[in-house]
């Protein structure tokens, strides 16, 4: 390999101390390498890393490290199901209770039935008095 080909290694500092020393000697003798080294300097100066747009970085995080795990969403669904079931049971329970209340309400408190109840009581009083005597 031609020693001139090693110029990039020299410019990028990828040579050992001894290689560097040898190449610097060559550089002092080779006009072509000196000229190319100038072009190198300009090219390196002009090169700058371009950062990806912030939205792209966020999109990467959303798709990877910050993605909601599948099982976590399953857990949320289970919770939602549990809440819905609880609600249905609750509604069912209260509907039944109010139905029972309506059963009590169906007792007949009319004056006729009250009189019947009083007459039973009075029969009992008579019975008791007979027994006591």
């Amino acid at each position, binding site marked *: 390999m031609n020693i001139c080909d090693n110029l990039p290694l020299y410019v990028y500092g990828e040579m050992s101390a001894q290689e560097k020393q040898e190449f610097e000697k060559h550089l002092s003798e080779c006009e072509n390498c000196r000229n190319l080294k100038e*072009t190198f300097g300009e090219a390196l100066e002009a090169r700058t890393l371009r950062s990806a747009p912030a939205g792209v970085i966020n999109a990467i995080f959303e798709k*990877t490290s910050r993605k909601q795990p599948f099982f976590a969403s399953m857990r949320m669904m289970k919770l939602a199901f549990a809440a819905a079931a609880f609600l249905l049971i609750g509604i069912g329970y209260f509907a039944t209770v109010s139905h029972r209340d309506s059963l009590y309400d169906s007792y007949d408190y009319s004056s006729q039935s009250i009189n019947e109840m009083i007459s039973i009581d009075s029969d009992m009083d008579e019975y008791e008095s007979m027994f006591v005597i």
Partner: protein
Amino acid sequence: MKHSNLNDSELVRMFKQGDNDAFEEIVTRYQAHVYTYVMSITKNPDLSSDIIQDVFVRVFKKLHKYNEEDKLKNWLFTLARNITMDYYRKNSKKLMPLETQEEDELSLINALPEDKPQPIDIVLANSRAQSVNEALEKLSLEERELIALKDSLTFKEIAEMQNKPIGTLLSKFNRALGKLRKILSEAEPEVYNEYMR
């Protein structure tokens, strides 16, 4: 522990132990390197954005099984290269380089905002940088790719990545540099003679 203080191998190990912040540090550390590299091939910001998303999503999925922690950077560029080439194969029309000037390229007008006059040296430097960047765009895909990889990797690493001898890479690099020099001398002979002899 601050993740930015950790080296690549430590980050990979922590990620394998379930630390997603370690992955985010890898993305933060290398996104600009990978984006610049992909841009040098596609010259298309939107496509490059899509590609780097693919690259890092794939890294996230495969990193658990990756055993060569010390070669993470190489692996990232290899993945980026393969994914970009896949895009090339599938959507060759979309990958036509943009004719319009890219947003972040420095122009003389950008270098001279009305409210902040800049020293003439900065203006000239920006103008020279623009000329060099334009000249770089005229190089072949392979040459652009090599120069872009050199922003992030050593010649030894590139040789390993591309499975080529270092000597071949150095010859190509010098050829690209010679071409760059010729393009610059033809485009702006005065500037070239003044600043680059």
